[in-house]
C-alpha cells in the first residue's frame, strides 16, 4: 500500500538575522559579512504514514511540530528532502486562520472549500452539514469579525472536517471550543478515522494522544526522536520532560511542581481521558471473574441519551457477564464532572439495598441505576465497577472508558449554580423582637 504521507530526509533551515539592516549589510557585502546564523527547525525527518493512521505529534514548544505539519500541508517548502501526500489534504492551523474577517461565515466556508479545490456546487451541497456541525446559528450570516474565538474555531473545524479529506492535519485547533463541541469534534474525527482518512494531530494533551492516536512521533529540537505506539511515545516524552525539569530546577517548591503539572495537563480537563490517566489517585487492581459488557445511558423514555437538561432523570444501565460463580458482588457506579475533575456522585447496589446475590458462571445481569441529576451544565462521565465484598480493595471488573454525556442548559427546570442543586428551603424572618404578621 502506498503511504498516505511519505517524508524523505526533510529539513528546514531558517536564517536568523538580528535586524533587517544587518541582512542588508550582508547582501551588500556579497556574503562576506556574517551577521546572521542558520537555524535548522527540522532535520533528517523520515516518516511514512499509512492511510487510516491517526498520528499524534508530540514535543515541547519549538520542537518543530508546526513546521513539520506546515511542510506536510504544503504551506512551507522544505529546504531539503521530499514530501509526498496522497489525496485531498485539509489542514487547520490555529483558530479560524485563513478566514477573512469582513466576510460572513458562509462566504468564508465557501472560500475555504474553493481553496481546497472543491467545486462551487459541491460546496453548496455540503453547506447543510457544515452549518449543522458548526452550530453557530444565525452567526453563519454575520461577518467573522463578530465571532468569538470559540465560534471561529467551530466554523474552521466544521469546514475542515466536512470536506471529506483524505488527510486531515490539525494543529492545536481544538483548544478554543467548549467541551460539548470538543466532544462532537472528536466524534467526527473518529468517524473520519473509521472511514480510512489519515489524521495528523498536534496536541499537548497526552490524554488525547493516547486515546485518539494509533501511532505517535516525538519531535525534539527538530529531530524525530521516537516513533511508535502512542503509549511508548508519550512515556518517552514525559520521561524527557521530567528529566529536563529535574535538571533545570532541582529543589523547586512543591507548588512549582504542581503548577508545572497543571500546565502540562491543562487542556486535558475537558477532553475525555482514560480514568487511570490522572483521575483516581489509587487505581484498584482488577482481579477478573466477570466482565462489564456495556454501559448505556438512557433518558426517561428509555432512549439512549448523550445530552440531558439539568434536573432530568438518567438511567445508567450496566450489563454484566459472570465468568465464574460468585457468592455475592456489588456493582457500583460513579459520576464524574469532567470540568471540575471530581467525583460528583457514586452509589452501589449494596448501598441502595438491592443486592445482586449469587451468580453462576456464564450468568448475565442487567442493572439499572436511575436518579435525578440537578447538576450544572457540563460534561459528565459515568464509570461502573464490580467488587467482591470479600475483597473490597480490588475490583472484579471495571469499565475502561465509561460513558460521557452532557448536561445542557436548555430545558433546565431551574438554573443550577455551583455544581449541584441541593434541596433548599428559604424562610424569611422579620427583624429580631418583632412579630411578622401576615397581611
Amino acid at each position: 500500500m502506498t503511504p498516505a504521507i511519505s517524508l524523505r530526509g526533510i529539513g528546514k533551515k531558517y536564517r536568523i538575522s538580528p535586524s533587517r539592516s544587518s541582512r542588508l549589510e550582508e547582501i551588500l557585502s556579497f556574503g562576506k559579512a556574517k551577521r546572521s546564523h542558520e537555524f535548522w527547525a527540522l532535520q533528517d525527518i523520515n516518516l511514512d504514514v499509512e492511510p487510516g493512521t491517526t498520528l499524534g505529534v508530540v514535543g515541547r514548544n519549538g520542537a518543530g511540530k508546526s513546521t513539520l505539519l506546515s511542510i506536510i500541508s504544503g504551506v512551507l517548502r522544505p529546504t531539503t528532502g521530499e514530501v509526498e501526500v496522497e489525496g485531498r489534504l485539509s489542514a487547520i492551523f490555529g483558530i479560524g486562520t485563513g478566514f477573512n474577517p469582513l466576510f460572513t461565515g458562509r462566504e468564508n466556508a465557501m472560500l475555504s472549500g474553493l481553496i481546497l479545490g472543491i467545486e462551487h456546487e459541491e460546496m453548496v451541497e455540503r453547506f447543510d452539514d457544515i452549518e449543522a456541525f458548526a452550530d453557530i446559528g444565525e452567526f453563519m450570516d454575520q461577518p467573522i469579525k463578530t465571532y468569538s474565538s470559540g465560534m471561529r474555531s467551530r466554523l474552521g473545524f466544521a469546514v475542515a472536517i466536512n470536506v471529506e479529506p483524505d488527510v486531515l492535519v490539525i494543529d492545536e485547533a481544538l483548544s478554543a471550543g467548549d467541551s460539548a463541541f470538543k466532544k462532537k469534534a472528536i466524534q467526527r474525527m473518529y468517524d473520519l478515522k473509521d472511514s480510512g482518512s489519515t489524521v495528523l494531530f498536534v496536541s499537548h494533551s497526552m490524554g488525547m494522544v493516547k486515546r485518539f492516536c494509533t501511532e505517535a512521533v516525538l519531535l525534539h529540537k527538530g529531530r524525530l526522536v521516537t516513533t511508535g505506539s502512542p503509549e511508548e511515545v508519550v512515556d518517552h516524552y514525559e520521561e524527557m520532560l521530567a528529566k529536563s525539569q529535574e535538571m533545570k530546577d532541582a529543589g523547586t517548591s512543591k507548588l512549582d511542581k504542581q503548577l508545572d503539572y497543571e500546565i502540562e495537563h491543562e487542556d486535558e480537563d475537558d477532553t475525555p481521558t482514560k480514568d487511570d490517566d490522572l483521575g483516581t489517585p489509587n487505581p484498584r487492581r482488577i482481579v477478573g471473574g466477570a466482565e462489564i459488557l456495556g454501559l448505556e445511558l438512557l433518558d426517561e423514555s428509555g432512549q439512549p441519551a448523550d445530552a440531558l437538561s439539568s434536573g432530568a432523570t438518567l438511567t445508567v444501565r450496566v450489563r454484566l457477564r459472570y465468568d465464574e460463580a460468585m457468592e455475592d458482588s456489588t456493582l457500583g457506579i460513579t459520576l464524574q464532572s469532567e470540568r471540575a475533575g471530581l467525583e460528583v456522585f457514586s452509589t452501589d447496589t449494596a448501598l441502595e439495598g438491592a443486592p445482586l446475590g449469587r451468580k453462576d458462571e456464564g450468568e448475565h445481569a442487567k442493572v439499572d441505576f436511575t436518579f435525578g441529576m440537578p447538576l450544572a451544565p457540563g460534561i459528565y462521565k459515568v464509570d461502573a465497577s464490580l467488587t467482591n465484598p470479600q475483597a473490597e480493595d480490588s475490583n472484579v471488573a471495571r469499565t475502561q472508558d465509561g460513558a460521557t454525556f452532557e448536561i445542557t442548559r436548555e430545558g433546565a427546570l431551574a438554573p443550577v449554580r455551583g455544581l449541584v442543586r441541593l434541596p433548599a428551603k428559604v424562610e424569611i424572618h422579620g427583624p429580631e423582637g418583632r412579630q411578622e404578621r401576615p397581611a
Partner: protein
Amino acid sequence: MATYTYNGKKSFAGEFFDSLATFYRKRWLLRYFVRRQVTRSYKRSYVGLAWAILGPLIWVFFLTLIFSEVVGLRFREVEDDPTLNFGLFLYCGLLPFMAYSEALTKGLNCIRSNAGLVQKVVFPLELLPFTNAVASLVDKLFGVGALVFFVFVLQHRLHWQVLLLPLIIVLQLLFTLGLTYIMAVVGTYVPDMGEVLRPIIRGTFFLTPILWPPETLPENLRFINDYNPLAYLVGAYRGMILEGTLPGGLATLYFALFSVALFLAGFALFVRVKPGFADHL
C-alpha cells in the same frame, strides 16, 4: 484527486506551466476572488455598486469644473460645448493611469496583506496578484462606461473606434499583470518599497501626457512620450473614446510585445520566489 508532491526536482519550466494551469484548476476560486475584490469597496456602503458609476461621474464633474471653468484650460474643443473639453480629456487620461498606479500599490501589498492565506492555508498564491490586477481593471471599466456615456450624452454620437477599445484593454491587462507580479515580489522582500513607490508614481504622473497634451512637448523631449507605455495607453484611450482615431500600428505592436514580455517576466519571477513567501512574512 489532488496529490501534492514536493521533491525539489521539478524544473523551472514545469513549475511555470504548473502555475499557469492553476488558473484553470482553481477557476472557481478565481471567480470568487475577483468578484469579492470588485465588490469589496462597495460592499459596506448603502448604494453599493452604484458607486462604481457615481464615483467617476463625480470625478468628471469636478475636473471639468476646475480645469475648464476656473483655470480655463481649453485646448480641445468639444462641439457646441467648449466648457466640457478638459474634464473629459483629463478623465480619459486618468483612467489608464489610475489602473497603473493601483496595480503598483495593490500589487505591493497583495502578499503581505494576505499573510493568513500564505502561512496558514495551501493557497495558490499566483491568484492574488491576478485578482488584484483584474479587479482594478474591472473597476476602471465602470469608469470607461461612465465616460462613454458622458461623451454620448454631450456629443450625441460615439466614434466606432470605441468598439476596439476592449482589444487595448486586453493588452493593458497583460501590462498590469506584469507590473503587479513584479510588485508583489518586490513588496514582499523589500519592505521599504512602499516609500519608494510614492515618488515613482507621482513622477510618472507628470511624465505622462495626462495634464498636458503630447503635442506640446518640444522636439528634444519627445522620447518622454515615445518610450512611455503609459503614454501609449493614454493616447489610445483618448483617441478611441474622444477623438475617433486609432493608435498607430507600430506603436501598438511595440506595446503588445512589451506587455507580453513584462507579463512573462513578472510571472516567471513570481513563480520563482513564491516558495519563499511563507518563510519571509
